[in-house]
């Protein structure tokens, strides 16, 4: 019987294309064939300003009179702080009553006597974070960057995309990131931790102003702490203490000291986007474009185990039993036999496997 699995990308070198999008319409400042470094800006957009409501009738003491004849600005016009928006002449214009703008911004709406201002929007830049070549531009929206890169996908991430130099503080995938393991070498780096972190370890990574953190697993009780960190955090396997799968660990370890982009993806339950680490490599090491690998489970497939006491284990499929296998919890499930690097062979339900490709 054929079985299909989900896929985790762990690729030592491939030609990778990634979209970098602005959150709203804006201005794209790169063109096709431009070379960009991670720090380069690819576009700018306006972050919405604060809304301010003013009541002209009350401010000008107009009673039941029509407000519109006293308003000096129109919807869409810009206003400066202190500039008059509405004016009521009084005592032969000697002592007029005026409604002035409390902010620099724009008049965005008027209803009856209510005037709505939006304070100046804030121009915000979107950086490339990935070094490479622009191969496509979506006007006002974003650009596509192509680069030769090693690519490692994770399971869960949070924060904004970032880039930095990879630093490993874990000596093995089983290590737990603790305070004493984090030193000044982590300053401004993307830190590769181990199977979990201690709370103090997270605080210390924060103090080093790291650009990102990669862990194998993460205790759920640290979630609040992780959400508050000012850099992205990517978990490779899932929640709870778990060593990083050896395929991913080896690729990351091989690139310690290299610049990488850390994209935490999007954990939207309905259309999730996997987090990933993109590590630009010399073009000469690329063997092929990032293709769409098969998701059909076959003998010889490289897989990782995502659930159960073998979570984090990676290996090669050596057999696909014809009939479902019965497990201790009382369920019978279609399964695959996996051979790990250690030579151990284990049976794992197909649904607990992801193909590594």
């Amino acid at each position: 019987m054929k079985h299909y699995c989900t896929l985790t990308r762990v690729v030592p070198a491939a030609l990778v294309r990634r979209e970098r999008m602005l959150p709203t319409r804006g201005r794209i400042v790169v063109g096709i064939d431009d070379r960009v470094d991670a720090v380069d800006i690819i576009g700018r957009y306006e972050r919405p300003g604060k809304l301010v409501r003013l009541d002209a009738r009350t401010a000008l003491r107009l009673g039941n009179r029509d407000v519109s004849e006293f308003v000096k600005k129109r919807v869409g016009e810009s206003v400066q702080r202190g500039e008059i928006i509405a004016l009521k002449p009084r005592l032969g214009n000697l002592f007029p009553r005026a409604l002035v703008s409390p902010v620099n911004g724009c008049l965005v709406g008027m209803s009856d006597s209510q005037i709505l201002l939006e304070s100046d929007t804030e121009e915000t830049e979107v950086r490339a974070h990935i070094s490479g070549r622009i191969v496509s531009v979506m006007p006002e929206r974003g650009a596509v960057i192509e680069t030769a890169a090693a690519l490692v996908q994770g399971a869960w991430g949070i924060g904004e995309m970032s880039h930095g130099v990879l630093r490993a503080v874990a000596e093995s995938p089983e290590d737990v990131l603790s305070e004493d393991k984090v030193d000044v070498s982590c300053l401004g780096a993307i830190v590769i931790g181990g199977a979990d972190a201690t709370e103090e370890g997270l605080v210390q990574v924060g103090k080093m102003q790291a650009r990102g953190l990669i862990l194998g697993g993460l205790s759920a009780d640290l979630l609040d702490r992780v959400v508050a960190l000012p850099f992205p955090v990517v978990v490779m396997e899932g929640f709870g203490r778990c060593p990083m799968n050896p395929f991913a660990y080896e690729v990351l370890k091989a690139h310690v000291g290299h610049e990488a982009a850390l994209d935490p993806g999007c954990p939207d339950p309905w259309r999730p986007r996997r987090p990933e680490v993109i590590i630009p490599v010399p073009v000469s090491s690329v063997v092929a474009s990032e293709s769409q690998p098969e998701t059909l489970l076959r003998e010889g497939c490289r897989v990782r185990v995502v659930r159960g006491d073998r979570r984090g284990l990676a290996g090669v499929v050596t057999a696909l039993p014809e009939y479902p296998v019965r497990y201790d919890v009382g369920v019978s499930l279609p399964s695959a036999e996996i051979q790990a690097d250690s030579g151990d062979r284990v049976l794992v339900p197909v649904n607990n496997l992801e193909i590594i490709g």
Partner: protein
Amino acid sequence: MADSYAIESILAADCGASTTRVFLLDMVDDQYRFVACGEAPTTIAAPGNDIVIGVIQAIRQLESITGKRFLDDELKLIRPERSDGSGVDAFVATVSAGPPLRVVLAGLVPEMSVASARKALTRVPTLLEGTIALGGDSDPTEQIDLIRQIAPDVVVMVGGTEGGAVQAIGALADAVALAGKLLERERRPELVYAGNVNARALLAEKVAGVINFHPVDNVRPRLDVEQVGPLVEELETLYADRKMARLPGFGRLSAWSPVSVVPGQRAFGQIVQFVADQYGLNVLGVDVGSSQTVLASVLNGEFVLTVGSGWGVGLGAARVLSDASASGVSRWVIGEDASENEVKSISLTKAIYPRSSAMAALGVEVEQALAREALRLTAERAMPAWETDTHRPYPDLAPFWDVIILSGGFLPRQANFAQSALVLLDALQPIGVCTLVVDTIGLTKVLGAVGAIQPMAAAQVLEHDALLTLGTLICPVGTAREGDTALRARLTYPDKQVLSLDVPYGSIEVIPLEAGRKATLELRPSRQFDIGWGRKGRGAVAEVDGGPLGIVIDARGRPLALPDGQDERRRVLQKWRWDIGY
């Protein structure tokens, strides 16, 4: 419209949030029967980004099971079925994948029109992201900011009885229009108005050119009249247009089917309605899936669909954890060493890998705890829609159902049916006497879609293959001291053998009765207990159905209470599991 040739073989796809299943139905001995099923991961997210890929993979698995060929070399469906046996005559699909409609609700009186609108929202896959109440010290700037920040798919506006004042509604429309102007055109919400009809023209004028305006009948035309139907219909249309139809690959999937692709929850509801109509019963359908939980019910002929969007045992696990709280989920877990942290870790990992299976007892416990809470949260939403009458004499409890159908990707797939039944009993706390039925293969949803092209196929497969009677549930309402007799039962088997037992309060008793057999059950509840036969203490004799579960007497009382202390709670949970044969 159906194809012109006779439809004998049918492929029916159910594209769930995590798993896509394709069922083959075909004629066997002049009857439509279920033949086989293939499944694969749903592929609406990267790297697939095309719902059809998952359908094709499920069909490939089906081909490997049946030895038949359904797809040609260009991956197109072979239709109609050829003389060599390849291909099928028809294809239909249901879709439960994809996000719900994100809604901001704006209204005047929280207890009246807003409450009615909330009721309408529970009947469609929606997430209520924010509420704007008019009047009082409500600040229009905050209203505009709320809509601008959320950028919902839909703003539902209600308020005012027919002929009432329109100024307040007009002011609210100003805020919605202004928020719309501040959003990019493609992120602007639709405005559905279900309030005072006199305000329609004013609202249409205020939002013209900015927001699409959808007026529907008032949800509260009079203070004593509620009509949510038109609002529900409009939201269903918007869900189909703005969410389901925009799933990647949906157009290609639709092109394969001669009839419209049906939302999964609606198709499930159609089957529950069919069963209720066919037998004249009060029926509850229960579907716990990966990202949503659905209760489809028919009570006194009135159909109610309740969708718990975002609550499920898979992609929806994180939302259950958040809305029910970690302690709410953990209270159902016995595991000696299970900390709340561990329960959270297991739940969140399940949300990342929704198709994964628990390999340890604790993992199974946590998943079942998530299902209990998803059901409880959804049932809370359904409660206001079930009228209080003779079939629902206790306002805080569920109605007396005649039949409960367990369906969806989770409940029918537990290690044994006792586990499925206990999740249901704990979460929904049914009362009275009812037959428990399970949709073992997960066919009910697709049969709702099959009915649109070949009603006979849906009816015959439903009768022969889809539903398995598990047994009879007997759940007396009342309380007593633990150990006091709640009811006396006397079961007379067809061979005249008799089994009598006293069922103590606080326990669950299981009386074996094989599948396909009926027996005569005499029940004598104590005077504090009601089993739905008129009043407390009234007993009666009934013919009951057997099944793999037999007869389950849940004498734990209603409402069900868990002890506060950790050790006592664990002891009681363990006892209940032993009682039911977990």
